[in-house]
């Protein structure tokens, strides 16, 4: 086997906690140093919350698994301070081709839209993705990362969780206010608490082979339905970093996973696809059966589940790790607000409701993609083949062809944290949406991006001129929010052609911000710490702003529940 990557080995370190006579108490303990656990530690650190991360292993993902990292994930990682190495190392792509039999039936572009800091998608092996996160975690003093510390037992009461951790020096005990569990799809902790992740298993098997080759195919996603070299099944070819290519062969339910994993059986499949002259070496291969499932509730007293432990999807659409990070950023600002005493504990329930919605959407999309790829009966096969056939000449049929709807963040349409629109606005940035990026300029014409400015605090975007008295009232309202601990920043957006003078002023240099947010003179948006819109108005009303901040912190919800 070839190897382009050597897994780092992180050393076991003995913690002073292991020598304590009584179990040491921490605010937050995170189980699992995969994408979800590492992201949570960084997110909390940026909110000033310390955490202990426990991982039973001493390295990052062995073999790649996830390869497609979505724009929103990179935007989140950019906030954590680890997106740049990912983008530098990853393969940026936005073009895809779909084949049916011998022929290409159509091609597509993912993000024809300009003016975004972060590319639509990159392909990067999961081990790099995790390694860059680990590097960033190690720079953050709030994070205590412990390798080869395996959580063996978990108990939870209404106000704390207690755990037993196994190490090479023997077991030790810890307690915490909140235990965040990201121990992966099989989550032994979930099982040990008698909890379940429910859903369906797809009766199909896939051979995932990562091969190393020098090839001058472009960095495109190529997907075959019923390829001549792999008849009646689908095949996917996608480029990753270091000239590693992901090939994904659908095998059918009857395939023998142990046999299919053998190089002698992989070789003829790859040769049929690439030709016998193409040089390549196998880097990693595995045979998977995929499932879509989730827990009914991610919160069990003081134990909160995240990532694959909470919800799992088939990989078509790349919604696993990408969905995990959206969940993490949803949870962490809320947890920080609750731990700081700025929000009622019931705010955490909205992590469950909002991300149940997110998981349902991800599961729906990946189930539909799986159903399209693997028709369950003769008539759906006929419809699928007919859609593919028509797609060549008739664009409408392309909208039916589904080889995976690539991960985009979901909109929290029904969340109680949003203040419903009173005025007419375009749909795109409605309350609950993730903020779209836009190029802006700060003082002295400094080029910046909107999302960098939004950061992880409540932000009020104000567009254009505001009357002097309204401005004064606003300052009073923000000062009063500040005193309650709900720091909300005002960011004044000036139209194209003007110049930013103060630090909290920026210019909409391309007019893109006003256009994306349907903003006119005097318009206002309130943005949550996870960069989701929670309210918007055509004219500034400082009282309404204060109410909307309270609502977004779950206070209205808590009062309604109490009433």
């Amino acid at each position, binding site marked *: 086997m070839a190897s382009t990557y050597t897994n780092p080995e992180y050393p076991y370190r003995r913690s002073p906690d292991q020598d304590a006579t009584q179990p040491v108490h921490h605010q937050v303990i995170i189980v699992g140093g995969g994408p979800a656990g590492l992201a949570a530690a960084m997110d909390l650190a940026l909110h000033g919350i310390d955490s202990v991360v426990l991982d039973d292993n001493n390295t990052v993902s062995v073999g790649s698994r996830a390869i497609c990292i979505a724009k929103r994930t990179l935007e989140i990682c950019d906030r954590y301070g680890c997106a740049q190495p990912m983008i530098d190392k990853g393969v940026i792509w936005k073009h895809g081709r779909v084949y049916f039999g011998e022929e290409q039936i159509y091609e597509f572009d993912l993000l024809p839209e300009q003016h975004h800091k972060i590319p639509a998608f990159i392909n990067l092996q999961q081990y790099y993705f995790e390694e860059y996160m680990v590097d960033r975690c190690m720079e953050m003093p709030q994070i205590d990362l412990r390798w080869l510390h395996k959580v063996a037992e978990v108990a939870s009461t209404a106000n704390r969780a207690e755990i037993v951790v196994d190490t090479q020096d023997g077991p030790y005990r810890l307690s915490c206010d909140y235990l965040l569990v990201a121990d992966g799809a099989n989550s032994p902790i979930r099982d040990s608490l008698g909890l379940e992740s429910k859903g369906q298993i797809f009766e199909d098997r896939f051979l995932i082979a990562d091969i190393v080759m020098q090839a001058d195919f472009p960095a495109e996603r190529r997907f075959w339905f019923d390829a001549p070299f792999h008849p009646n099944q689908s095949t996917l070819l996608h480029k990753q970093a270091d000239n590693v290519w992901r090939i994904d062969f659908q095998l059918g339910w009857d395939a023998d996973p142990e046999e299919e994993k053998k190089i002698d059986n992989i070789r003829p499949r790859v040769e049929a696809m690439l030709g016998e002259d193409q040089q390549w070496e196998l880097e990693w291969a595995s045979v998977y059966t995929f499932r879509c499932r989730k827990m009914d509730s991610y919160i069990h007293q003081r134990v909160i589940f995240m990532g694959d432990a909470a919800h799992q999807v088939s990989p078509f659409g790349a919604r696993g790790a990408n969905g995990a990070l959206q969940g993490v950023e949803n949870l962490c600002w809320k947890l920080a607000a609750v731990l700081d005493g700025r929000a009622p504990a019931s705010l955490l329930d909205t992590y469950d409701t909002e991300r149940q919605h997110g998981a349902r959407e991800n599961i729906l*999309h990946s189930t*539909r993609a799986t*159903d*399209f790829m693997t*028709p*369950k*009966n*003769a*008539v*759906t096969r006929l*419809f699928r083949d007919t*859609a593919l056939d*028509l797609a060549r000449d*008739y*664009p*409408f049929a*392309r*909208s*039916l062809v*589904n080889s995976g*709807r690539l991960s985009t963040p979901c909109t929290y349409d029904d969340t109680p944290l949003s203040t419903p629109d009173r005025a007419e606005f375009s749909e795109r940035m409605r309350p609950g949406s993730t903020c779209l990026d836009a190029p802006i300029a700060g003082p002295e014409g400094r080029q910046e991006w909107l999302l960098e400015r939004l950061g992880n605090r409540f932000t009020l975007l104000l567009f254009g001129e505001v009357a002097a008295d309204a401005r004064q009232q606003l300052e009073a309202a923000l000062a009063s929010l500040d005193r309650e601990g709900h720091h909300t920043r005002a960011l004044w957006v000036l139209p194209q052609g003007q110049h930013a003078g103060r630090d909290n002023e920026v210019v909409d240099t391309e007019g893109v911000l006003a256009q994306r947010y349907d903003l006119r003179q005097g318009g206002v948006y309130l943005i949550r710490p996870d960069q989701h819109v929670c309210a918007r108005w055509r004219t500034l009303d400082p009282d309404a702003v204060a109410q909307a901040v309270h609502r977004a912190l779950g206070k209205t919800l808590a009062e309604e529940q109490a009433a």
Partner: protein
Amino acid sequence: MSTLITDSNFTDADAFYAALADVHRDRSDAESAAINARLILLLANQVGNQQILEQALAIAGQVHIKE
């Protein structure tokens, strides 16, 4: 003259496709064929316009089944 729309006109193509697969779930071949016939007649009536229906029929008629 009215023209058949061949660009996507679905409000939610994936939801339509999933519902189409659902209506055929666990049906016999004869039932599926009958469902398709009923669906075509319902949709044809919805379209109504004879010029458009004839354009759709012309495209639909161009089948070449590989033996």
